[in-house]
């Protein structure tokens, strides 16, 4: 299990390859990557992600540890960036390794659902009109109920 919180970009290809390699007892590897999207109807200049150093790592470890034990994962990876990002930049990734595909998928979705609403990150979007905090969505909070 590995948790990384950093402002620097990460190398998705290398991380994915490194995570997936050398598992002879895990038949299923799932990755999810979040990318900064351009806004609909407006141009996103940049996204700035604020976080709570200390609590962020603690919250991510708790979420990943729960996923590891709940789905019997062989491994789990969470990388999340903070600071300034541009459209097309990768914000974060998670990866899960499990014996079977259903568990690898479920665990990755669980990580994402909890990471969305329980890890202390806040996104601010900047356009030519200035900055606006991204509002949490009810559907993201609702997504936790299925677990």
């Amino acid at each position, binding site marked *: 299990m590995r948790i990384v919180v950093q402002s620097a970009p990460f190398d998705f290809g290398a991380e994915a390859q490194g995570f997936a390699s050398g598992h002879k007892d895990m038949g299923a590897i799932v990755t999810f990557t*979040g990318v900064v999207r351009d806004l609909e109807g407006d141009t996103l200049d940049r996204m700035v992600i*604020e976080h*709570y150093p*200390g*609590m962020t790592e*603690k*919250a991510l470890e708790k979420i990943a540890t729960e996923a590891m034990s709940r789905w019997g994962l062989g491994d789990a990876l969470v990388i*999340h960036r903070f600071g300034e990002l541009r459209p097309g930049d990768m*914000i*974060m990734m998670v990866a899960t390794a499990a014996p079977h595909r259903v568990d690898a998928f479920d665990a990755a979705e669980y990580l*994402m659902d909890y*990471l*969305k*609403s*329980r*890890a*202390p*990150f*806040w*996104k*601010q979007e900047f356009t030519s009109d200035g900055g606006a*905090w*991204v*509002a*949490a969505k009810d559907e993201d*909070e609702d997504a936790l109920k299925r677990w």
Partner: protein
Amino acid sequence: MTITVLYFAWVRERIGLPKETVETTAATVMDLVEELRAREERYAMAFSDLSALRVAVDQDLTEFDATLDGVREVAFFPPMTGG
């Protein structure tokens, strides 16, 4: 007692600082909120709608009725938007 209070995102913007040290006798988070609200208008505004806020005590998410007994750090922020 002395507690470090942190503010994030628009809570930080409204109050105008990311962090401060507070001397308080508050027994719960809610007591602390009342003390802060009474200070200045910017605090009253930041804490006007608690349903729009979340609170963490010593870096664990909790509720506004949580005790401050033995607590060193309290953080206020809007619902998180990670991922």
